[in-house]
C-alpha cells in the first residue's frame, strides 16, 4: 500500500460526516446495522492498519454474499519491490478481433448488462490522420472477418500514466498511483463526480450509470480490493493491469495478454532489463499515445515488423 496521505483532507471529511450523521441526514437509525455505520465512517484505505483492512474485507465479503450471492475472496496484495509494470502492444500484429475486450470483462467482473468494457479497440483507416486523434477513430466497426483491407486497429485502455491527470483531478483521492505504477481506484471512496473521466486524455475510465449486472455464475471469485471486485452503481472503474494476477509472486500475465490470439500484447517489469517489455522498448519502434501531454504512460505501442 502506498503511504502518501493528506491528513488534512480526510480529517475534515470525517468531521464533516460526523456532523452530518448527528444531524441524522444519512442513515435511517432503525435499519442501520453496525456494519453500515462502520463502512460509512471508515478511514481512507491508505490510512488503515492491518486490523482495519481485515475487518473491512470481512465486511465486504459478507455484503457481497448477502446482497448478490457472490462467494468471493477479496485480497489486498501489495506491490512487489523493484517492480514497475509496463505494457506493450504490437500494432503490426493486432487484427482487431476484440478477444481482449471480452477476456477482460470475464476476468475483471465488468457489468454484462448494462455493458461496460475497459478495453476499446479503435479502427483507423490506413494512411489517414494519425492515431492521436482518437475521436475520429471507429470503436463500433462491424465486420464479418478481421483484419479488413485498408484498416489497422489500436486497442486503448488505461495507460497507467506516471504523471496521471486522473489522479490530480480526483477531489477525494479515491484514485492514485501505487509504487509499482498501477493506477488504482478505491470504489468505496469514489463519489462518482467523474472529474477523472474528464481529465483522462485516453478515454480510459468508465462510469457505472446503472446497477452493474453480473450473474453470480459468471463471477471471477479471485478478486483484489483495488481491482476486479464487483463494483457498485455510481463509481468509476478502469483497467488495473489485472492487479489480482500480476501482483502474485510469481504473477500471471494479465488476461488480455493471454487471450490475444496473435500475441500482440506484451507485459513485464520496466525495471528488469531482461523483460519482454524492455526488449520491445530497446529494439522496436515504440511510441506512446499523446506523448505531447507529458502524462508519461507506461503503455507502449510498438511495431515488431
Amino acid at each position, binding site marked *: 500500500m502506498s503511504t502518501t496521505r493528506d491528513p488534512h483532507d480526510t480529517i475534515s471529511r470525517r468531521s464533516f460526516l460526523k456532523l452530518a450523521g448527528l444531524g441524522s441526514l444519512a442513515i435511517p437509525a432503525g435499519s442501520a446495522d453496525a456494519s453500515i455505520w462502520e463502512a460509512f465512517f471508515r478511514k481512507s484505505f491508505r490510512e488503515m492498519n492491518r486490523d482495519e483492512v481485515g475487518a473491512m474485507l470481512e465486511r465486504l465479503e459478507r455484503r457481497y454474499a448477502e446482497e448478490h450471492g457472490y462467494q468471493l475472496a477479496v485480497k489486498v496484495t501489495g506491490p512487489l519491490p523493484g517492480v514497475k509494470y509496463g505494457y506493450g502492444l504490437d500494432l503490426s500484429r493486432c487484427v482487431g478481433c476484440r478477444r481482449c475486450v471480452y477476456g477482460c470483462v470475464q476476468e475483471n467482473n465488468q457489468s454484462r448488462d448494462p455493458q461496460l*468494457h475497459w478495453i476499446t479497440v479503435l479502427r483507423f483507416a490506413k494512411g489517414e490522420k494519425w492515431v492521436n486523434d482518437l475521436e475520429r477513430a471507429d470503436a463500433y466497426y462491424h465486420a464479418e472477418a478481421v483484419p479488413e483491407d485498408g484498416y489497422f486497429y489500436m486497442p486503448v485502455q488505461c495507460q497507467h500514466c506516471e504523471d496521471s491527470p486522473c489522479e490530480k483531478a480526483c477531489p477525494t483521492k479515491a484514485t492514485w498511483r501505487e509504487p509499482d505504477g498501477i493506477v488504482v481506484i478505491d470504489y468505496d471512496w469514489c463519489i462518482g463526480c467523474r472529474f477523472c473521466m474528464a481529465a483522462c486524455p485516453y478515454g480510459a475510465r468508465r462510469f457505472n450509470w446503472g446497477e452493474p449486472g453480473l450473474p453470480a455464475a459468471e463471477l471471477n471469485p479471485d478478486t483484489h480490493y483495488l481491482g476486479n471486485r464487483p463494483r457498485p452503481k455510481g463509481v468509476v472503474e478502469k483497467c488495473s493491469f489485472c492487479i489480482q494476477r500480476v501482483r502474485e509472486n510469481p504473477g500471471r500475465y494479465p488476461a488480455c495478454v*493471454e487471450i490475444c490470439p*496473435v500475441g500482440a500484447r506484451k507485459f513485464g517489469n520496466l525495471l528488469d532489463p531482461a523483460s519482454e517489455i524492455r526488449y520491445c522498448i530497446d529494439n522496436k519502434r515504440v511510441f506512446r499515445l499523446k506523448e505531447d501531454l507529458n502524462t508519461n504512460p507506461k503503455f507502449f505501442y510498438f511495431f515488431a515488423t
Partner: protein
Amino acid sequence: MKTARAVAIPLLLQLALGGAARVTLPVAQAEEYPVPPPPLSDGIFPCSDCHADLEPDPTPRVLGMHEEIVERFHHAEAQRWCLDCHNPSDRDKLRLANGELIDFGESYKLCGQCHGTNFRDWRAGVHGKRTGMWNGRKEYRLCVHCHDPHRPRFAPIAPEPEPRRPWAIDTASEGEPSAPPPAHGQHGSE
C-alpha cells in the same frame, strides 16, 4: 494479513527444499523453450507407419498423395517442396539445412533458418503468444501452433461483437424509463 502468509509459505518451502531445487535446475535449463506438443493432424503421425515401406523419391514434383496439403500449400512454393523440411530417410523427423535431424517438437529451429528476426523476437518472448507467469515459468508456442507451416499467413477471423453505443446501453433500473437516444448523432464516426 492473508497476503503476507501467501508470500511467506512458498519462501519457506523454497528454503527447505533448497537442495532439491539445485538438483533439478539443469533439467529446467535443458528445456529452454517450454512448448506444448506439436499440433499434428489426427492419425498422421508417426509418418513411418506408411513411409517405412516406401522408397523415397527425391525428385521435386507435385504429389499425388496428401491432397489437402498440396491444395493449400502456399509457402514460397516456387522454391520449396516437401523434402526441404521433411527428412527423406526417417519421416518422423524434420531436417535442417545442415543435415541435422530434429523432432517435430523443435520445429522452431527449422522455421528460424529463414525467419531469423522472428526467431530472435520469439526467443525473447516478443514474437508470438506467451502465457504463464510474467516473472516465472512461461509457456511458449511453436511457430506451427499459430501458423500453418504449409500456409503460414493467418486467415481472417470473425471479431467479437462491437460494443453497444452509449445511448443504446440501458442503465435504467426496473420501473424507471430508460434514456432516449440523443437527437443528433453520437460519439465516433461510422
